[in-house]
Every structure is written in C-alpha cells, then in structure tokens.
C-alpha cells in the first residue's frame, strides 16, 4: 500500500504541476494509527498528506458532493466501490466527466477504522481483532469501473456464496414475523442521519426528511417515524445503491442497513434486469426507476 501512496502522490503532483487539476480528493492520516479520513488537497504542497492504507475505507466519492457547484478540476482516487459512486453522480448529472481525472485503485479489502476506534476507546464490549471490514468481505467489485489511470494489480471479488442469502431468509418469514423483525431492528435508530450523510447516492439537494412544509416524516424516535424514515430512504435507493456499505458501517447503533439495500438490489434486478447501479458508465444512461415513459405498461399507482 506504501507503493500506492507514493504513486498517488506522484500522480497528484504531476497533475497539479501540469495545471490539470485544482484539487485532489483522497485520504489523509487521522488521529490514531487506525484512522484515515477523506482529504481534499488544494495544492502541490498538500500532496504529502495524501495516503492510501489499510484503513482508507471511506467512500471519497461522497466528497464530490461538496464540490458539485464549483468549477474546479478535480483529481480523485477511487477504490472499486468509490468508483461506482462516481458513476452514480455522473448519471445524476451532479458532476461532469470533464471535471474529473480519476485514479483507480483495485482494492485489496480494507479494515474498518470505526470498529478499531470502538475497541480502542473502551466503550461497550471489547471487539475481537479486526480482520477485513464486513463491507469488504461482501465486496463484489474491488476494481474501479471508471478511471483515467489505474494504480496497482487487479483484485478478485471477495463476496462468497449467495449474496442474497440473508435477504431470502427474511423473505421466508411470515408478514408478522417480518414486521416484528424490522420493528425491533429499527426501534434502536437514533435518527442521527449518518446513513444518509455518508451515502453518495443520497445526492438530493433538499432531502425529503428535511422538508417542513409539508413534513413528510415525523421527528419522533418511535416505531412509526423510524420505519418511515428507513423505508422511504432505502426505497429511494432502489436502483441507486452502489453497495459500498458505508451506511451500515457508520451506523452508531449497528442497524443492518445493507439488508434493506440488498433486498432492493435483488428486486430491481429481478424486475428490471440490466446492470447494477454504478457498475458501468455510459453517457446519458439512466438507472432503473429514473425514467418515465408515457407508454409504460404499468399504471401509475
């Protein structure tokens, strides 16, 4: 990974010097050994702070949202999952391809700095030694799907077995059992909206949950409002979730949010087929559920 770091720094330096970019998005070292955070380098002097290590798990494509209204030319380092985020933003016309210079990093699988921080901080139960993060063990696309330059050797997907096994288990439940399962699971939500904030597919300028007139979802933390929040949020992700797993990783109360996302990925796949969200960029292409056709065979319900 040291090699990748120096390669990234080399490329960023070159791009800054050639005047091809104004900023470079990547990661920098955090407070502790196990902490790495997203970073925006603004000049060649900042390049030395750029790092790629076993904790560079944060999906940096999310940081593009902070720059969507500007005109800067942006260099960005992306792993497989991050690159799918970039595709999503391109499809949603949140950023234009000509503003981006993308460095792809085939990802070997990373560790979760938050899990490490929990163990280190001594809150709650000690967690056992950190292997690869859950989201990395479930990864189907470690290699970047869009890039101008690639750094490092290709990797093989780490997802083993049936990716939808848990979804199928829940589908097998009776309606009452399933309701109970989600009621219990979502009752613990503290509505901090970290799952939304960290999500690159959540790129709406005004979020439905922030609207007051009308207020679509109540602010009480109870079963009704919590369910409404999660079901609506995740339904919005249908055909859009790039499976980066960040929502589930950052959740402070451990809600298995990827279960909801995978259910939708499975359904959208079965109903519409086609390529999964963000796996391939074709200019002008729209994901399922983003297009309206007058001759749609189904009624608008």
């Amino acid at each position: 990974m040291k090699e990748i770091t120096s390669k990234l720094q080399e490329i960023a330096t070159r791009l800054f010097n050639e005047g091809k970019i104004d900023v470079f998005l990547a990661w920098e070292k955090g407070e502790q050994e196990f902490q790495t955070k997203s970073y925006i380098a603004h000049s060649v002097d900042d390049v030395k702070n750029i790092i790629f290590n076993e904790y560079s798990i944060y999906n940096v494509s999310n940081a593009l949202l902070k720059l969507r209204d500007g005109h800067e030319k942006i260099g960005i380092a992306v792993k497989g999952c991050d690159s799918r985020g970039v595709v999503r933003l391109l499809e949603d016309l949140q950023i234009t391809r000509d503003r981006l210079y993308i460095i792809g990093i085939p990802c070997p699988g990373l560790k979760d700095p938050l899990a490490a921080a929990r163990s280190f901080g001594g809150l709650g139960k000690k967690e056992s030694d950190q292997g690869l993060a859950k989201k990395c063990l479930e990864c189907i696309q470690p290699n970047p799907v869009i890039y101008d330059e690639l750094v490092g050797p290709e990797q093989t997907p780490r997802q083993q077995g049936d990716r939808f096994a848990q979804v199928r288990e829940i589908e097998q439940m009776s309606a009452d059992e399933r309701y109970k399962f989600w009621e219990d699971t979502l009752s613990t939500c503290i509505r901090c909206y970290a799952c939304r904030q960290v999500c690159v597919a959540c790129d709406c300028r005004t979020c439905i949950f922030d609207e007051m007139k009308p207020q679509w979802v109540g602010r009480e933390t109870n079963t009704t409002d919590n369910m409404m929040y999660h079901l609506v949020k995740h339904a919005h992700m249908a055909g859009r979730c790039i499976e980066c797993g960040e929502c589930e990783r950052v959740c402070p109360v451990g809600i298995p949010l990827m279960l909801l996302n995978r259910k939708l990925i499975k359904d959208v796949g079965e109903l519409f087929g086609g390529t999964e969200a963000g796996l391939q960029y074709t200019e002008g292409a729209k994901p399922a559920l983003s297009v309206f056709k007058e001759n749609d065979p189904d009624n608008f319900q």
Partner: protein
Amino acid sequence: MKVLSKTKLEAALNKLSESNEVFVPMQKKAQSGYYPWTSFVSGDEIMLEALNVYQSPKGAVLPQTEKMYQIKQGGMEIKIDKTFEDDHPTIIFGARGCDVKGILAMDEVFLTRGYEDSFYKARRSANTIIANACYEPGSNCFCNAMEVNAVDPAGADVILRDAGEAFVWEVKTEKGEAVTAIIADLLEEKEVQLPQSKPFNQKVDYSGVAEKLKTMFDHPLWDKLSASCINCGMCTFVCPSCYCFDIQVKMWGEEGYRFRAWDSCMFEEYSREAGGGNPRGASKERFRQRFLHKLEFFTERYGTPLCTGCGRCMIVCPTDVNIVRIIDAVKEAEVNA
C-alpha cells in the same frame, strides 16, 4: 465502609426497580447504553466494569422524544387537555463522572437564569444519580481537563467504587440516603482496598481556550477543521451534554399533541428560518457552532465548558473529527489582533 457485594448487584437492582425506573449501562446485542433494568433479558450484559457505554444516560432526564401536552381545537379556540410532566422516580445507576457533568450542565440550562423548564424539572427532581467512580481513564478520556473529577464526581447522590469483589457504596446526599434505605439489608460493613487512580492518556489544556475563541469566529482554521465533516448528528446524539431540542406538533384533525425531540446543530433544518433563510447554511458554519457552543459560549454563560471530556464523539465520528485536536488547534492558532 458500606459495600455492595457484586453477587448482590442484581438483587439490589431488582429491589430498586420496585419503586424506581433504574437505568443501567448495558450491552444489548449491537447496542450499548443506559436501559431500564426491567428490560434486561438473557444475552444482555451489565456494563459497570466497562469504561462506559455508547449512549449516555441523558435520556433519563431529557428523553429523545418527549410528549409535552395534548391539544384539542374547537373553532378558533385551542384547549390544552393534559400536560405530561413526568415525575416518576428514576435512578441512573453507574454513570461515570463525565456523564454526571453532562446532566449538571443541563440543570444549568433548564433550571437556572430565570426560567424553569417544568418538564425537565419534573423528571430531574425525581431522579437520583448513583455514579461509578472512574479510576482507569480510557484512551480517549480527557474529563480531567474539562472540570470533571472522575473519582469524586460532583452531582452524584451516591458514588460507587469498584473494589473488585464489591462496590463501595458512598452516600453523598439526601436523595442518596433515600435510595440507600431501599437496599439497606443488601449492604455490608466491610473494609476493602480502593483502586489506585491511573493517569490520563490524553493531554488536554483547555485553559484560555474560551477566551481566545472570542476572537476566532472568522479564523481560517474552521475551514480546515471542518473539511471532512459530513454534518450527520451522531456526535450530538451520543454526547452526554448536548441538549438542543425542537418542539413540534402532531395533529389528527382537531386533536393532537405537542412533543419535543432532540435536534442537532449539525442539521441544516435546525437553523433554517421561517422565511427559508439560514444563518448557518454551510457545513462549516454548523461545525463551528457546535464547537463554539461546547468550548466558548457555554463557558461564557455558565462558567464551565459544555464538553465533559467523555471522548464519545471521537470514537463514533465517521470522518475522524477530534475535539481534542480542535482544542489544540485553537491553542496553537495565531490570531491577528
């Protein structure tokens, strides 16, 4: 000294729960926080020996969602049917000094300076705090720098001291006497060895920070510090002293109720004005507000910082925002006079 043998802990919690709702630090599956003892089921764990739990006990006196009053509308008239000042007796069992300080800070806000919040007052008056003295600070702890005495926390009605086989039971106040009476037959007189206090790992110097921040509202350091923040509200919701709330109403036709729910300065909606403008529209501005409130404004008004040094926000933050480094950065910053 009075001690409570650990073998009698569950009996004591059962006894106390007969007449009080007792909040105990517990691990419940993936979650850890203060939960009512009566909700304990097999598989749960009492976390008195852990450093702390994720969710602070502030919910015992300021629940995340709290019904305030019930309303009925008739034409132009509005009638308040019922108010919900809740004064059922509660005990926070085993709170660390940092978390007790969080509640003391809320006492200042809700009970002093000319206005008493009747909802908070009802809960707080009926609330007893049994603190758990802290002898071994964790890797993120810095309460010593934020005016907290971890071994002798101010505001505790009873202080527990973990002496291995038993907790020393040290009564501090009348409220403490009252809960002690409930479990008197479970306590023993015994001399036990108290643990030695271990040093703090974090070195934090808060002195002069509040004063210096007065001149730093427009300092460029906020751009840099806030760069990675994504404005979720996790830090504010796990914080033992963040008390901001929003009051809203739910109506069905002509009936409904008003409630308040925790809110977060990290949210855009929090500072949005009725006309649509927002004085803190940008991410940096909301970020700055949080830290100025913790480190400057509260100190100016109440003479003590609003951060209690529990370290939770540094653990949960998905983008590694670190309040200790912010204090350092403020200390080191150059300010043009």
